[in-house]
């Protein structure tokens, strides 16, 4: 009987979404009168268990093995599936990240379990977890419950509040690992240089559309983003024109994002783009065309040439930050 958070770590660093899930999981566990526990998998990662405990995990299952040093769907899912079978948790939470999206459906199918992906909210109703998630990239939402045990869900990063860390050390349960043959193996990881904050985790996103006129002009957005510590996104028009890579596309055929502030520059506001960014807390838009659809969504709009406005913004942000 417990709620489990599958912790995600890469190169010995925990992902923020894991701590966000623990913060929320602690509330849920209290309401349901059950325990909150975490599962940590990797090689030489036991030191991370204290951080998981600090955010509320009453117990941390630690599976360490050299072969788990690199992520593999088969290896990691085997470990989690065996743990589920042995301990029968009520709910298993993953982050809705490349890691969680690859792992959670595999674990769910093995357990014969239902799963709700990319949830943006969860509450307890009549002793059951009820999940809210966007469909059509945010053009609509559903509330659903999972009938199986365990309940499997993936949490959208950057949506749940992060609680306070307590000073505590983890109650660790070491997991015996005996891996079967792993077929699909990671040969190489290529991290993009620059170290800019990720779109899906960013508090602030600066985004450019067709109005940017060319790839070279994204420099001014990069400069503004540097000052703000923001991620840089793009509309489909800008990606289709070949100005930005697809992984930076925000919209129904790109990323759905939930930042605190979204600054749309030269973006008209096509429905497929709005779908991906409409859950931003605040939207500011700069566009020459006063009829642009984006102004129907924006909290603050400037009808002007972005090439004149963005440099002003960058200078002003420098002053106030």
């Amino acid at each position, binding site marked *: 009987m417990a709620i489990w958070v599958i912790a995600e770590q890469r190169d010995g660093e925990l992902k923020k979404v894991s701590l966000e899930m623990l913060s929320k999981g602690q509330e849920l566990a209290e309401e349901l009168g059950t325990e909150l526990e975490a599962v940590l998998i990797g090689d030489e990662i036991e030191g991370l268990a204290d951080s998981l405990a600090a955010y509320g995990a009453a117990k941390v299952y630690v599976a360490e093995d050299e072969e788990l040093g690199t992520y593999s769907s088969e290896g990691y899912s085997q470990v989690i599936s065996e743990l589920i079978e042995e301990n029968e948790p009520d709910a298993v939470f993953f982050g809705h990240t490349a890691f969680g999206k690859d792992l959670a459906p595999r674990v769910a199918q093995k357990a014969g379990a239902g799963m709700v992906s990319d949830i943006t909210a969860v509450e307890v109703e009549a002793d059951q977890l009820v999940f809210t998630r966007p469909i059509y990239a945010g053009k609509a939402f559903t509330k659903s419950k999972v009938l199986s045990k365990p309940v499997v869900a993936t949490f959208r990063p950057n949506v749940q509040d992060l609680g306070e860390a307590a000073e505590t050390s983890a109650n660790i349960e070491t997991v015996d690992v005996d891996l079967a043959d792993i077929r699909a193996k990671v040969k190489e990881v290529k991290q993009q240089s620059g170290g800019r904050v990720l779109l899906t985790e960013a508090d602030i996103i600066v985004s450019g559309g067709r109005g940017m006129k060319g790839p070279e002009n994204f420099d001014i957005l990069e400069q503004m983003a540097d000052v703000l510590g923001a991620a840089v996104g793009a509309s489909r028009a800008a990606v289709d024109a070949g100005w930005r890579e697809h992984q930076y596309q925000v919209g129904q055929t790109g990323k759905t994002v939930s930042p605190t502030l979204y600054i749309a520059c030269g973006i008209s506001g096509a429905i497929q783009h709005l779908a991906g960014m409409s859950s931003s807390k605040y939207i500011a838009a700069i566009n020459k065309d006063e009829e642009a659809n984006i102004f129907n969504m924006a909290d603050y709009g400037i009808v002007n040439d972005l090439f004149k406005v963005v440099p002003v913004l960058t200078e*002003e942000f420098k002053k106030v930050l």
Partner: protein
Amino acid sequence: MNIIVCLKQTFDTEAKIELKDGEIATQGIKHIINPYDEFAVEEALKIKEAQGGEVTVISVGDDQAQEALRQALAMGADKAMLVKNPQGDEYAVAKVLAKAVAGMEYDLILGGHVAIDDGSGQVATRLAQELDLPQVNVVTKLELKDGQAECTREIEGGSEIVETPLPAVVTCQKGLNEPRYPSLKGIMQAKKKELKQVTPEELGVEVEKQVEILEIFLPPKKEAGKIIEGEAEEAGKELVRLLKEEAKVI
């Protein structure tokens, strides 16, 4: 190289979503092949052109999904199968697909990494588990040689190169290829190609639901906000002031 492509028919990306009696209204909506599944069809055709073999497209959907399958046939796929089953969640659809492909010979199963309607991104990976195959998700480059697939897959802030023996399930991401348009000749030929229809009952699968949708709702309408007047300099300064003092987001 025999390839199975799983595809889903979805609403067009520009479709406006409205509710009717608490359900998503389908009236007047244009339907398309899920864009990510279209990359899967294209990739399968390219592999077939290079190495020979057969491409089978399969969909779980209602009668209308035949259109999507016909389009894939017109692009160049050889055979199609529709499992008529609009009900069922991802768990059930994976079970159905696993049964549907059980009698087929294949080296590779391709699909999109997510469907743009429900956005759940579960079925292909569940299918891999159901068939006990390895899977590689969100792939932007795929190379096949000597019974192996080398896949470049997108992860946060970069990419991974994953190698897997075949058969395997691989899901496709934008960047992998540019899907072709069906040619007129292709459209004519597609009419003569096999489009088999089966039901879950005929496949011997009981459709169970593990997820119950309690409610569908539209997001609250966002009101248009403040248009900041003035020249660029003035308006820019005012925006930064508002973000700091009113919205308190910086």
